[in-house]
């Protein structure tokens, strides 16, 4: 093995890893990067593409007709028992759709604000994934594997590129909605990569980062004096042991101190204009505005050089009702999503940032009745929709498509591993080359698959 690689590997396995070290680490890009930052708006639970973007007038014609057996042959669904008891019926959407922008994209009346930024979007229809259960499918979207234990996409990116921020973590996770996403911290775990690449959850209440505040009785001056004392004493220890790891520890304590000073400034929206606050619909401290607050925070994080920001918003799992619960979650998400894209654009950040919006899978063209008088949709893994906005993409363009019932993709298939490969490609990373050897195997985000979706690129 190349001795440099050997050193790097040993280095990574044994220590001296830090946010600071990853900051200093030279970006190892394989080709020219189109973007520097990612904001991933993860819509947890499986948003119904058929109620939002994938307009299927033909499906409406077949509404309430029993799904043809050949359509379902060989397919597997969650809650097989509900589908096997009685053949499911097709379900046309009850939503009104309108076209918006120059690319002919459709948007339902649930997301009027997102429709206004149609010309910034690249819409992917007919994306497929491997697993029809929430936890494993979320792991798959985030780590490329349905089992926990692999590094997440944000960890891979910060491992590959480091971060531009000296006083914030390179990979930040934000959470909103009534509960946490299924699989929890495993979704932003660094897996077998060093923990310095793990997503750091920022909290919406209390300290944004755990333990960012000093204990009550400790003044800022005392904290500074403490860090200085630690620095001097550790330096003495270095003269006795010669251990260079001590230098790293000194640097880490100093960075922790910087984080303590920059953290409060980061979450203080006081300097944002009323127009900006209104555009997002942000309102600090209000739980029903949590997604909007997080979108604004995401922009502020990217402005400060954070590499990868991931927002999780629950819950989109509409098995039994596509009316009020869906209206509620789209109300929480629509305005702020559009505002984030507009805001990034007006600040000149959208060119170097990728915004990606989507969940772990979509929902079936067949209806699901769990409660009399209400109708929802089951999980569907064969064809769902996500969209992106940002540098390097063909704007205002639809990529892929689905058949007239919205059941299967038409044209070249697009799989989760392809989305992951494309995301890395935009960052200047070849997904086949970003690997890490663990227990004798070179692992990568896209496992053994993944093709960059070149037709989506500008």
């Amino acid at each position: 093995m190349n001795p440099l690689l050997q050193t790097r590997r040993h280095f990574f396995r044994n220590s001296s890893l830090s946010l600071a070290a990853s900051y200093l680490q030279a970006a190892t890009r394989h080709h020219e990067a189109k973007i520097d930052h990612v904001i991933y708006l993860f819509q947890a639970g499986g948003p119904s593409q058929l109620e939002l973007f994938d307009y299927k007038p033909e499906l409406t014609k077949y509404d309430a007709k029993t799904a043809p057996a050949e359509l379902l042959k060989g397919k597997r669904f969650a809650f097989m028992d509900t589908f096997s008891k009685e053949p499911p019926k097709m379900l046309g959407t009850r939503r009104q759709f309108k076209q918006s922008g120059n690319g002919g994209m459709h948007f339902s009346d649930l997301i009027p604000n997102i429709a206004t930024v149609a010309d910034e979007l690249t819409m992917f229809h007919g994306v497929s994934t491997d697993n029809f259960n929430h936890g494993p499918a979320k792991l798959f979207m985030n780590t490329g594997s349905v089992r926990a234990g692999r590094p997440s996409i944000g960890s891979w990116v910060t491992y590959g590129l480091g971060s531009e921020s000296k006083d914030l973590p390179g990979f930040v996770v934000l959470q909103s909605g009534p509960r946490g996403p299924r699989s929890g911290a495993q979704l932003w775990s660094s897996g077998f990569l060093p923990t310095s690449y793990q997503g750091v959850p920022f909290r919406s209440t209390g300290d944004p980062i755990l333990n960012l505040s000093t204990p009550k009785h400790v003044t800022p001056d005392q904290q500074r004096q403490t860090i200085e004392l630690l620095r001097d004493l550790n330096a003495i220890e270095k003269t006795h042991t010669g251990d260079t790891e001590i230098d790293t520890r000194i640097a880490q304590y100093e960075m922790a101190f910087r984080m303590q000073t920059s953290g409060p400034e980061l979450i203080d929206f006081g300097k944002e204009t009323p127009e900006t606050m209104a555009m997002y619909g942000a309102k600090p401290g209000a739980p029903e505005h949590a997604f909007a607050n997080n979108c604004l925070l995401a922009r502020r994080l990217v402005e400060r050089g954070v590499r990868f920001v991931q927002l999780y918003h629950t819950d989109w799992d509409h098995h039994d009702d596509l009316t009020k619960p869906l209206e509620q979650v789209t109300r929480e998400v629509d305005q702020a999503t559009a505002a984030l894209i507009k805001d990034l654009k007006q600040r000149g950040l959208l060119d170097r940032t990728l915004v990606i919006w989507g969940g772990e899978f979509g929902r079936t063209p067949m209806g699901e009745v769990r409660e009399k008088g209400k109708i929802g949709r089951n999980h569907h893994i064969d064809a769902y929709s996500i969209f992106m906005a940002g540098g390097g993409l063909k704007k205002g363009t639809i990529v892929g498509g689905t058949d007239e019932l919205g059941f299967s993709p038409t044209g070249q298939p697009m799989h989760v591993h392809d989305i992951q490969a494309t995301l890395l490609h935009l960052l200047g990373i070849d997904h086949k080359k970003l690997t890490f050897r663990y227990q004798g195997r070179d692992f990568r985000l896209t496992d053994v698959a993944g093709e960059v979706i070149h037709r989506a690129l500008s």
Partner: protein
Amino acid sequence: MAPIVIAPLLLVFAQAAEDAAGCRDSALLTRKTGCLIESCSRKDFDAASMLTGRTNGNETLKDIEGKTEEIFYLCPSGTSGLEIVRNIAGALKSAGFQMIFEGKDVDKEHAVTGRKGSAWLMARTNSEGRYHLTTVIEQAMRQELAAQWEAAIGTSGRAVIKGIECEIASARIRPESEAVLQRVAQMLASNPSWRMRVEGHTDGTGSRAANGKLSAARAASVMAWLIGHGIASSRLTHEGFGDTRPLAANTTEAGRAHKRRVEFARMESTRFHNTRKFDKMSVVDRICLIFVAVTGLMAQSPDAQFFEVQVRPILRANCWGCHSEANTTSGLSLQTRESILRGGNRGPSVDIILNAARHVGDLKMPPNKKLTSEQVAVIEKWAAAGLPMPENLVKSKRPGASHWAFQPVVRPGLPTVSNAGWVRNDIDRFILAKMEASHVAPSAEADRITLLRRLSLDLTGLPPTVEEFKQFVADKSTDAYQKQVERLLASKHYGERWGRHWLDIARYADSDGYTIDAPRDIWMYRDWVIEATNQDKPFNEFVIEQMAGDQLPNPTVPQLVATGFHRNTTSNYEGGIDFEQYRVEAVADRVATTGAAFLGLTLGCARCHDHKYDPVSQREYYQLFAYFNNTDEVDKEAERKFFNKPFLEIGSESEKAEFAEWQQKIINAEERMRKRLETYSGDPTKDETLVGIEKELATLRRNKPKLPRTMIMKDLAERRPAYIHLGGDFMRKGAAVEPGVPGFLPQAGNSSGTRLALAQWLVDPKNPLTPRVTVNRVWQKYFGRGIVDSESDFGTQGDKPTHPELLDWLASEFIAKGWSQKALHRLIVTSATYRQASTARTADPENKLFSRQNRLRLDAEVIRDASLVASGLFAPKVGGPSVYPPQPAGVYQVTQVRREWKTSTGEDRYRRGMYTFFQRSAPHPSLIVFDAPDSSVSCTRRNRSNTPLQALTQLNDEASAEFAQALAKRMTSVGESDSARLTAGYEIALGRAPRADEKDRFLRFVRVQRDSQQEPWVAVARVLINLDEFLTRP
């Protein structure tokens, strides 16, 4: 293939001088007078792009493969490009070449391409009087060449291989010959039963002695090349014959060329068969030659002849590339009759193979090609005759079987060393011998404070108390250190420390993982590990009880609890899942964990296909899978309510009865609800019966009776059939498999196919991997690096041991001492190697020689434990249900099902870090921040990162603040003097007094705090538990 000999064309131009070294004109065409060769290249087999046409801006090129040469000429200034090309074109035409292209290329340079039979020639001018010539003698694909060699060997016992050239009067092989040699090597590799003699022959020029020497040297260099390219040296021998076996007269150059050669002769064991007469040799124009001559072919029965002449060439050219003993794609080898009959992953049926060859059905083979109907007929005839083929076609196992780690453990002798005075036990001999060979001296022994801190942290995960330090420093007896070792090995905390190392491997956690991530009952397994470690249960029994305690005769309760080892897999109970899928995932995790924990093999790599690097086939993977496939776990929706079964219920009879009654009530109520729902069509919320049942259920669930229980392994009465999962997909079942261990390792003595049989095999003294992997992992904990750095990969892609003899010595000593872990620990910690100082040195900077100790940041749990001890809050209780020390608010914001963290009170607030309740989807942040494993999969080595989040945790966390306050109290209790208080703090936290400069700096800090009206001692204590020295095992 017919030999290609093109007579030189018209000598258009005369020779020139001062060419680039080693370059000469093409045999097809000499140069224009006055031009020099600037550079040239020749390839024995390559592709060249020949210009065949041009349309506007595009050139049409045709890639021709064969022997190529490219020669660049520089001509005197004023030479016209057109003139050069016209001349060449004329020469080609008059030599009978067909003109393919003549004119200007896209760069407006002149070009000409011609062809005559298999010979292609292209000349193109470059700017300023330069031109280059490309020639190709077109040849068939190498693959086919090799097939022809083998076919020839099959039919006539020999074949002629051309194209291996040596330098004149030298044994140096010309680089362009490598392509041919590669193919020879491949052919030898795919015929591993052939043993060959390489013979060198020269012509008659020169003395007999010189010729003998040269011919031997040539044969040797060919042999060396082959050995260097993977042919076992045991299969090759060489000899020089000089001119003693002439094939032709020495009077002409052609004859002499004919005689200079290297011959290959196949040998039957040690007896050498004379090569046949080479009277039918083709005309040869090379400097040296290789004949492959094979004698002693199998008896020429009609079957054998049919196979050799007709079947083998088809298999060789179309099948064996992917389906050989060396490369069993889809588990199928077509190289032995037995393996064909056994079939591949799709099952044992010759029809599958025949239909694939016929292109009938989904599977069509070979891929992207169809055999001719004649070829298919040959295969069919062969199958109908019962697949006659020689038994000795392939003798060796898959590659990698000879890898060092798979060989038996051999106890090496002890090396001799010069500095014998340094040696404390036999470990030191191995370490010192290597240091002495590298001229590096060992480090001095660490001071007593360091030694005791190191020893105590390593053996118990706790720092020594002030009294323990004092006692050891004051103990002047010669066995003072030995006494400490024995004290610590006997400590109940020893089992906690080394038990926790094992729990990393066991992927122990207190919750299910995945979506629901509910708490589970398995802490009793954790306590079993601690207890077994404290009792020094021999490692072989330790393994057997965890793998298969339930299958031992009359298993005891602890033996059943031990089987929780393989129940630490994650389990998914999300709504709407296919339970079988997650059961299969759990079984796969058991295979992977078994591989990592005991065998140091990356078995998971063979789940979807044969292992790429190690000799583990996909079939063998599923044979291991089959051992674990029979557990009575939930595999269908109907069993949802029994999630996480099987359990061992450890309660009184009345507790068990009460629990069973409660469980039955729930089942009954759910059944009534289901029946009612089936018949009732109105709004269920308005139905009194349903509402009633729902209330009843809620009450029942609230009042769940306590029944201590723990997850265990228990097999079904009837074995679940196991299959190869094609492509790793549990829905695509291939051939059925029976339990079995990989073929390249010693086989199991017990063939019952039970987990017990597997466990016994793992710790069979003949199994070379388990003891090596185990001692290596223990070594790694003491030095920060294993003797094999890749502790979980002892396969061909893993690291080689830095001290292979020491590894084997330790492994054999481990077994000899009855698999006692304590004996192994005692051996290591009493060595001089372990007792060295950890100070960095310029000699051996990466410490590859273990010429010093390594400073190691403490593990996550130990940082908590050390802080607890320093603060005096430490609760020494061992075992029991997991506890809930303070955790920052909001950790559970991110979980799918909101959980409540009921902060423990009393002693449980101050328990060791290893007892903190481990919630897989939201582990306690202070554990994860310091690299505790996330317990999804087996962890054989923790990372040791160094991050600002660690600084924030140890500085600001609620728990740290509490520790600092308690430590401050201990310091201030010693009196009023600042100096005394500081010294007390140092002794408590680090076991030593502060150095003068440390004291000065600290006291300055104390003064500054006082000046700003701050109470200084909590701040001082906070600094002490954040010092690098405090966080590090020295």
